[in-house]
């Protein structure tokens, strides 16, 4: 390998004063700042960069840019890095992919020998039997040959990415002359502008042009950086345009994060991506040394790399002609220039690791190590397609053009047509001005509609018609395939022969052809391949290319890392005001929805027993709490709960259950009346948000005449349940202004008072545990004080905190069902045992007709208390209840625990109505397969079914 670095070039990007060292397949190399990985390697004489996916043929530089299908490499733990555009960084460890054991000796090349049998879709036609061989052998082998790099999932972690929102009036995708000019004129028109260029520097194709191009570029760049209102983002790609101009930009080279996703709501999107040069299909077109004109121009002019020594050029356009000049200036012997415009052609290239000879259309064989093709352009219309456009093929210009774009998307530059640099810039300027106009109108409209904005004083800017002078479409020969077959899709190893075979088998629409052969399905997503593939199909079907269409472009425009898409992982968590205390006092946490809360403090059984014997404290802040005020609260309650609410007195609380319109139990809780027009509603912890939205819905859309204000107060009130036979004793020590005696403050009542000096606490006497208990709702800023006072003043009473697990045990002993656990998505009110609660004679209640229907049915499952006959066995929750002698399912255990109070296992279960009467023996199939018997109880409650303990 010898150095291919040329003497200094006028527009070179490399800084020769620097030296960056890196490794390639373990060997040390060096390059300069400004080099890409590929240019540094090419400068050092490296010619083979990868192997083909299927046949493992050697691959070299083809396009020398972001889209080069042969330049995917592994860099450290990052797979599939685009070596054609990724800038070199000191210390990079680069290695080849798709080659084993080495790039040089790749065993996969064996596939070349059997290549003729591996035609399109061959795997569909064999390995059918025996089936086990497919699974155990063939598939495993296939998976070994999967292409691409290696993810280091063992060591990798997610972390350092983040995102940003932006609201530019105009966003320009592409920083070539057209895009730069558009950005400038848009800013001059008063628009805020974001200019996004995927390369690390602005300029587009001007960068590798002649002295005139470089002068224009310098001037444009200067103007851009001196005009206010333009944010320039280089090394950043516009990766998607979504509905309503929601635009994704992937920013690289950010000083803080490796990649940042910018989500921009854009007034006008200007698409100026230029053109992508198209490869030519002929035999041997994947041999290293076959390059596109743009590739040799970039190599020579941007990185001062000599791409070969003896070149043949096939040129159909000015880019090819310019490549000839560049090659000669770089000291490459151009031994033949074949002019495709005059019908000249090449037929085949031969060579093993490198081009050795070129066979021309007129029968000559030329010795050369470089074949350069300039056979035309593909329009990267992807962003326009995402905006709803269906670009149309123009036979004369031999490429696609935009057809009809929405008002907020405009195209300029090469994608729109051809012209001199001045003409392209002029079109860009006009486009930028138009884009700004439209965006400013939109901004005016937005300001008018948005309450918080500064109201615009002026009338909206006038709408101006699109009077841009269109760019011309220069004629270009339709060069797609020579008379021989060659690769169409480099990353998928698909040849024109494969495509023709597929069409012959019936896959003769472009979409079916794609799916059968996988053409355009690789990492480049058809940037280079789509048009050639369509051209081959057009040839087979003897149709115009325009009638074939293309496959669908979909986001992203260029692949985006999962890390960048994820960004920061924002997972909000909610903590009660007491959560720090719990953690400091030994709590083991549990995540319940967004809430972090104590599951237990070490021994849940003991915590439960302490509640039965002494007094326990549990933080139930996540209970949904809604403050309801207004004269119509009772009407609202009557509507949303299945029971009746008109007669609830001030100072009383009541249990209520809710169903949805289909009669399925959806939430429950207690609601208390604090004053005439003032109530506090509680909901389940997980249902809090939904119930609030539901109340608003009924109030706003169904009964706007009702006067009710709903205020969520869940976090504002810390809820503490003080439960146990000694709870009154404890509270009496801390509550001054409320008479806690059984007569003055009976079960299911509410009082407002001062607890441990904290005023405005709401205390209600209810309980989920079945013991005498009080639920105190304390203003959260002071609730730690209250909690600590309860703990410290009750040490002689045996006060101790308890967690969710103890509460679950206690409530199960008491037979209280949990919505969503003991009921499911189909459980109607009768199943939950709400027969006594539901009032069917109301004029309106949510789900009323379904409630009526449900109570007429006799086939609905019934929730029952259940006890295994062997008291030591606790059937796992979700165990099935089956017919004794068969596998027929007759119900399931919905909750189960060992009861510390009864010292036996207890359950709630949903059973078939035939099994619901007390005393029925049922069969439960345990997880381990054993079948046990259990007996249906008379009540849901296993402990104190009469409720004596809570009424004391």
């Amino acid at each position, binding site marked *: 390998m010898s150095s291919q670095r040329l003497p200094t070039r006028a527009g070179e990007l490399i800084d020769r004063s620097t030296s960056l060292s890196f490794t390639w397949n373990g060997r040390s190399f060096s390059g300069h700042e400004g080099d890409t990985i590929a240019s540094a390697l090419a400068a050092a004489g490296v010619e083979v960069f990868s192997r083909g996916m299927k046949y493992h043929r050697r691959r070299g530089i083809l396009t020398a840019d972001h889209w080069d299908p042969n330049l995917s490499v592994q860099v450290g733990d990052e797979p599939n890095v685009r070596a054609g555009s990724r800038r070199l960084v000191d210390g990079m460890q680069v290695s080849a992919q798709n080659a084993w054991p080495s790039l040089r000796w790749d065993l996969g090349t064996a596939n070349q020998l059997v290549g003729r049998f591996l035609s399109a879709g061959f795997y569909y036609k064999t*390995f*059918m039997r025996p089936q086990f061989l497919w699974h155990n052998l063939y598939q495993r082998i296939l998976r070994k040959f999967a292409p691409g790099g290696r993810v280091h999932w063992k060591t990798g972690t*997610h972390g350092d990415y983040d995102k940003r929102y932006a609201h530019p009036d105009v966003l320009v995708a592409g920083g070539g002359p057209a895009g730069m000019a558009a950005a400038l004129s848009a800013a001059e028109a008063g628009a805020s502008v974001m200019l996004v260029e995927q390369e690390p520097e602005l300029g587009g194709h001007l960068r590798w042009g002649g002295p005139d191009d470089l002068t224009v570029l310098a001037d444009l760049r200067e103007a851009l950086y001196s005009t206010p209102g333009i944010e320039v983002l280089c090394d950043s790609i516009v990766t998607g345009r979504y509905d309503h101009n929601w635009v994704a930009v992937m920013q690289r080279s950010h000083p803080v994060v490796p990649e940042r996703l910018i989500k921009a709501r854009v007034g006008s999107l200007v698409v100026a991506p230029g053109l992508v040069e198209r490869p030519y299909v002929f035999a041997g077109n994947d041999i290293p040394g076959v390059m596109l004109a743009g590739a040799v121009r970039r190599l020579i002019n941007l990185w001062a790399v000599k791409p070969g020594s003896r070149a043949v050029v096939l040129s159909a356009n000015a880019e090819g002609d310019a490549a000839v000049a560049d090659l000669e200036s770089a000291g490459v012997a151009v031994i033949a220039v074949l002019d495709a415009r005059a019908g000249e052609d090449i037929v085949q290239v031969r060579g093993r690791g490198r081009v050795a000879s070129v066979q021309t259309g007129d029968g000559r064989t030329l010795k050369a190590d470089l074949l350069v093709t300039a056979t035309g352009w593909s329009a990267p219309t992807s962003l326009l397609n995402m905006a709803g456009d269906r670009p149309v093929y123009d036979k004369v210009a031999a490429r696609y053009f935009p057809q009809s774009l929405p008002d907020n998307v405009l195209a300029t530059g090469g994608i729109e047509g051809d012209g001199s640099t001045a003409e392209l810039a002029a079109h860009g300027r006009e486009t930028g001005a138009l884009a700004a106009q439209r965006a400013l109108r939109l901004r005016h409209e937005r300001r008018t509609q948005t309450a918080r904005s500064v109201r615009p004083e002026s009338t909206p800017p006038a709408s101006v018609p699109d009077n841009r002078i269109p760019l011309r479409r220069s004629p270009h020969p339709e060069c797609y395939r020579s008379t021989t077959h060659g690769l169409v899709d480099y990353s998928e190893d698909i040849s024109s022969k494969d495509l023709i075979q597929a069409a012959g088998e019936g896959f003769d629409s472009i979409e079916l052809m794609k799916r059968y052969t996988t053409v355009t399905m690789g990492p480049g997503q058809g940037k280079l391949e789509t048009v050639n593939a369509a051209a081959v199909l057009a040839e087979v079907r003897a149709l115009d290319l325009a009638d074939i269409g293309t496959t669908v472009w979909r986001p992203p425009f260029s692949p985006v890392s999962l890390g960048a898409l994820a960004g920061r992982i924002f997972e909000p968590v909610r903590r009660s005001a007491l959560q720090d205390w719990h953690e400091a006092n030994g709590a083991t946490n549990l995540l319940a929805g967004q809430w972090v809360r104590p599951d237990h403090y070490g021994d849940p059984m003991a915590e439960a027993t302490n509640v039965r014997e002494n007094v326990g404290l549990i933080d139930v802040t996540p209970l949904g709490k809604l403050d309801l005020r207004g004269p119509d609260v009772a009407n609202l309650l009557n509507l949303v709960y299945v029971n009746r609410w008109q007669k609830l007195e001030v100072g009383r609380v009541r249990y209520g259950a809710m169903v949805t319109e289909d009669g399925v139990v959806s939430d429950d809780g207690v609601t208390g009346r604090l004053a005439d027009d003032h109530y506090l509603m509680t909901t389940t912890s997980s249902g809090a948000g939904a119930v609030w939205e539901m109340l608003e819905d009924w109030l706003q859309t169904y009964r706007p005449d009702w006067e009710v204000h709903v205020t969520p107060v869940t976090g504002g009130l810390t809820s503490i349940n003080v439960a146990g036979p000694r709870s009154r004793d404890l509270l009496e020590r801390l509550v001054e202004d409320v008479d806690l005696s059984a007569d003055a403050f009976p079960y299911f009542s509410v009082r407002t008072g001062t607890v441990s000096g904290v005023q405005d606490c709401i205390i209600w006497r209810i309980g989920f545990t079945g013991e005498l208990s009080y639920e105190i709702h304390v203003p959260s800023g002071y609730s730690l004080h209250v909690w600590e006072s309860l703990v410290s003043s009750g040490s002689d009473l045996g006060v101790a905190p308890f967690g969710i697990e103890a509460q679950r045990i206690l409530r199960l002993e008491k037979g209280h069902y949990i919505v969503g656990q003991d009921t499911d998505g189909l459980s109607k009110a009768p199943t939950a045992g709400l027969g006594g609660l539901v009032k069917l004679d109301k004029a309106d209640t949510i789900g009323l007709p379904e409630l009526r229907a449900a109570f007429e049915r006799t086939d609905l499952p019934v929730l029952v208390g259940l006890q295994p006959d062997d008291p030591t066995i606790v059937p796992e929750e979700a165990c099935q209840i089956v017919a004794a002698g068969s596998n027929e*399912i007759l119900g399931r255990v919905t909750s189960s625990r060992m009861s510390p109070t009864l010292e036996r296992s207890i359950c709630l279960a949903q059973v078939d109505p035939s099994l619901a009467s007390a005393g029925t023996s049922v069969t439960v199939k345990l997880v381990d397969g054993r079948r046990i018997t259990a007996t249906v109880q008379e009540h849901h409650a296993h402990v104190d079914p009469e409720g004596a303990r809570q009424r004391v």
Partner: protein
Amino acid sequence: MSRHGYKYSAGRLLRHGLTRDAWPRMWRRPERRDSYDVVIIGGGLHGLATAYYLAQNHGITNVAVVDKGYIGGGGSGRNTAIVRSNYLTPEGVAFYDRSLHLYNTMATDLNLNVMLSRRGHLTLAHTDSALRTMNWRAEVNKLLDIDSAVIGPAEVKRLTPSLDVSPDTRYPILGALYHPPGGIVRHDAVVWGYARAADHLGVHLLQETEVFDIICDGGDGPDGKGSGGRVTGVRTSYGDIGSPVVVNCTAGWASLISNMAGVPLAITTHPLQAAVTEPCKVFLPTVVVSGSLHVYVSQTDRGELVFGASVDPVGSYRVNGTLEFTEELAGHVLELMPGISKMRLMRQWSGLCDMTPDYSPIMGYTSVEGYLVDVGWGTYGFKAGPVAGETMAETIATGRAADLIAPFTIDRFTAGDLVGEKGAAAVGH
């Protein structure tokens, strides 16, 4: 299949490789007839399988499958191809289990390698309520002889090493429902296999033929449509086609077609999105689903990760896809596998899902004579394709709803007898 057409085999592959002879077409471009015994609207898996079983099992071959685009261009061509049978309800389990059986022998039955990969299916549980649902499913499955069990985090790690099972993550993996026979299949090949086999048996595949209307007679609605009427044919972009039996197999478009017959459906259409990464060396052996994180992922034999999620919350017929889908997807996948943040997403797409209130299909006869539905396939209809085709064919041929589809009648909504899959299927796949 040899009785009907050209048989594929390793020998054939060898011969074609040596002779370089062209392969025959998999299906024809048939000459359209004016009428057929059965017209099936929708050339997805369901339509094609129905046609195939009508011909293969019941000898009814004067059948047309009509599609407005190319075969498999609907959900059948854009799904994440997960097959399994570990459903929650006995009716669901029986139905999907039959389908899995048909998948098992499909490659030989259809003489096309559909690349079924029974690599094991894991549904992760991150909360105790999810774990309870997993247990519920496992217990029902076991009673019905389905290979299905709840496993702990260590076993999850053994089966799928790239998952982060440490207990201190935001959504710790508490366990998983493990279903060894579940896996993935090459979805397009399934479509092509049925298409090829149906074509060989004489069925007409009419691609690029859009149905604009269903012609009815005698119904209580306008133009003789609706309850009490009967079907006489369909109006297409190529003219009218007569038929006494019209089957709606149009999944995401089911409401539009059904409204043409005056039969409203309990369906809303929602986009469901999916995405693939660039290929990387294979490291993910199983199919992984997380209901709480709304994501599922598997790795193809070509090395790409294929991702899916739950349906878009807003109903729509738009398949453009959204950025937020990829953002959420990536975030959730990285919570499961923090080590793959440098893999790159290469393409996103979406398809339409015909969602029913109880996550179960609507199948069989309707109030319009001769108009049948096989719709409501939501996010889970690919795995059901074979059994749906088999039972719909039986239903059409015998004039009586097949036993397996009895729970899925259109009448269940007016009867208030919804199917209980609602809990488990939301992100089930």
